[in-house]
């Protein structure tokens, strides 16, 4: 069996991938749809999104803030609003998996 690989996002070190995923899942569930993400969690997400395979596209002209909104089938998802007012959603799973 392969040994679990530690993951580091921002200032937080996780022993294994699933810990990082659970951490972000809990974070997502803390917010209601349409709620803005607070300062602390935003800092974390800013680091996390850099690991997203399409991070350049997602960030675009620059991030104004993060928020939570509904995605397909009534689920929830992290979104970001760019400084030009456009929005984009991103999956936290991609920030850990790739």
């Amino acid at each position, binding site marked *: 069996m392969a040994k679990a690989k530690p993951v580091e996002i921002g200032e937080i070190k996780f022993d294994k991938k699933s810990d990082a995923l659970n951490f972000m899942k809990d974070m997502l569930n803390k917010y*209601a*749809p*349409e709620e803005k993400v607070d300062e602390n969690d935003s800092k974390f997400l800013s680091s996390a999104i850099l690991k997203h395979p399409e991070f350049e596209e997602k960030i675009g002209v620059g991030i104004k803030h993060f928020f939570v909104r509904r995605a397909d089938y*009534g689920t929830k998802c992290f979104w970001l609003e760019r400084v030009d007012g456009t929005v984009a959603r991103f999956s936290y799973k991609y920030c850990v998996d790739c």
Partner: protein
Amino acid sequence: MSLSQLQEWLVSDAGIKDKLDGLRIWSAGLSFGANTLELDETQPTHDWQKLLFAASILAESNERSCQEYALMIAQSAVCYSDEPIFKDAGGLVLSRLSNYRTIELAKTKELIVDQLSERVGVIEQLLWTKRRLNSEIPINSHHSLSGNRFQVNLWEELANADWLSATAPTAAGKTFIILNWLLTQFSNGKCHSCVFVAPTRALVSEIEKQLNDLKFDHDLKELKVTSLPLKELAESETPFISVFTQERLHIFLNASKSPHKFDIAIIDEAQKVSDERRGVILQDALERVVRANPDCRVVFLSPHSQNPEDLLQDAPSAANRAVVPSTSSTVIQNLLVAEQVPRQTTQWTLSLSDGQGNLEKLGGFSLLDRPTTIKKKMAFIALALGKNSSGTLIYVNRADDAERIAALIYEGLDSSEFSEVVDSELAELSESCKKIIHPKYQLVPIVKRGVAFHYGNMPSIVREEIERLFTSGKIRYLVSTSTLIEGVNLACKTIIVRGPKKGIGKEMSPQDFWNLAGRAGRWGADFNGNIVCVDVSKTDVWPSGLPQKTAYPIKRETDSVVQEYNELSSYLERRMEMKTADLDPKLEHVAAYLMSWQYREGSLKDAPPIKKIDLESANQIEQLIKPMLDGITVLPEIIDANPGISIVALQRLLNYFREYPGEPEELLPLPPEDDDSVDQFVFIFDVINLTLAPVFAPETRVLPCALTTWDWMRGKTLGQMILARIKRAKNKKNDASDSEIPYPKLIRDTMASVEEIARFYAPKYLGAYLSVLRQFFHEKECDSLFPSDLSYDLFLEFGVSTKTLLSLIGLGLSRTSAVELGDFYGRSDMSENEVLLRLNAREWELHDLPPLVKREINKLIETKINEGKLPRG
């Protein structure tokens, strides 16, 4: 000995109390009709002459207990004495009590021979005439009614008072007098517009119907009586009476630029100012009415309350005030206890309570089978006690209990009595339930044997028909939940209760119990009413034993919360930082009320609940609210228009809009016919949960709420919504077989979500959402993009989204009928007149409509002919 001393002596132990009580027990035993109770072999004899003489003395008293004894003796003599002369004498005592309706009842039952007044001596004839004249209430130049003492008193006080508070139990006939008085105000030209506020939609439609019938007695056939809060009403020149719930009154006041000026406001069930959320909304509505017109006359009605005068505290100082309490009863009410005979589960006894903890056995009765469950117990007791009379009501705590007990009663009724022939009205009701609700709805079979159930979420067309048939006696057994204490004026002969609760899990206060018990005994239809309490000796069923007779204390919810100063102030301290999920609904409503008062007036010092606390606390509250009002930019009229939603919450919503990254149009709801309409409702409900209040939380509930709201607004019939829900349940269980589908529960749940979500929360919060959004569009200078023709609050309140359907409802049809008919109409913008002409062409007779719907349309056409709005013939 003075007269009052004599009266006091008569009802004391030294007097003839034992004789009076003996008579009371004996007559209570007979009141169930022959062969219901097994009475003792030895029947007491009564000295009628002496008793009736005592009754004539007691009838002169103003004490409630004396009058009750007088009434009891008179009725017993009329019903159960053998000699015509005693029956006549009983009738005379009734006339002294101004109880002419009971005399009429005795005549119809052939207990008293007609022309009673001519059989008595000359002196008594003169007195009879004098009494009759004194109790006459002249409603117009050619018509008058004979009122009881309370009604006469109320009528006199109404002539002078500007603010009046009347309190009397259900059977005293207060609503009838008030409605007649109101109509005289219109016929005398003293009133141009009136609002009658009733707490439930059921009561609203009942009052609307009564007014529409009574107006012909007053030659007011053209007077508009409506329950639709439309803007056009306020703008028209014609006089009108509007009958609204407090929520609809707010919608109406919001509709025009400045709130409409009413001449008269009548607040029914005024004790409900103490209700948690809706009490504050009611108080706020009334304050708005009085602010718009300080000269508005105000009448409060409440059932038997302790302090009716408190309702007049907010009257302008110059206003004439009057309090009219009722001191007399019109019907004798027996509080009875049913207990099992030890070791014999089918043998039971019935005893009369004297209200002081003593029980006197009346007789025994047997159940048809062993009561192996509590539901069976209730059903079998109802069957045993109701077998010889109509009007048996069984009170239960939950809707599913109501359905199941009704089904047990249905089964217990001797099937040989019910051949193929079913009464035509019962058959029509059954058929209509099949079409309007679902073929598997429990009511479909059981109503055919004259058994039904009744709870709040049923469609009004069905519920009202049940009430009508129960009153007429065709439905003999009715199993009902607490909707009855919430203000449906439904009376019965016998109520059977076991450990009553108010809703689920909430203990019932003694006042509510007596309000419920007050429905036993229909004045003019019964001589007495029976309240049968089951298993009273079990402390887990009746934790406080038999409820003591007490009056309602009237206390505004705002006063109660403000007086809990510490709780309120710590809430206000934390309020700014709170997430909506942490809001306390009880405190939030009052906090909202105080904030908007302070915002509007600049200070709280004149707010009614604040005036009642000490200055220091008042200042503290003001100081706590002050920082929250800094930076408020929501318009004052929006704050006024949304009672119960705080300024802070409204501002949070406005801020959300301002920070919204997309285009403003993306925030608008879509018309229900748009494909993306549901998704948009999901988004809007999420925003409401986040900013205003968590009314559609948790987030997994948002989609079901949005679906219900959407279906309701696009005019789906209840039947279609139930079918859709059943289909979803079947899909979820991978095409489960029919027997696995919990039909009764799915049907009830659909009805409940329509009432709570689509008809209550969605209109209230969507209305607030839209009014703030409109302000935001104005800020963005894109007013023209805001749709002017979509009044979602109105659409939701009535569950339709076209003018044609609204016109049908405006004419007086139920939503059910309007929606059924609407399917056949192509145009969506028809006015009331156009729709009426279309109905009069009678092509609807060819459509396959439920019988109740056809009856409703027929009745409407007939009314409109009487009103002169349609040609006769």
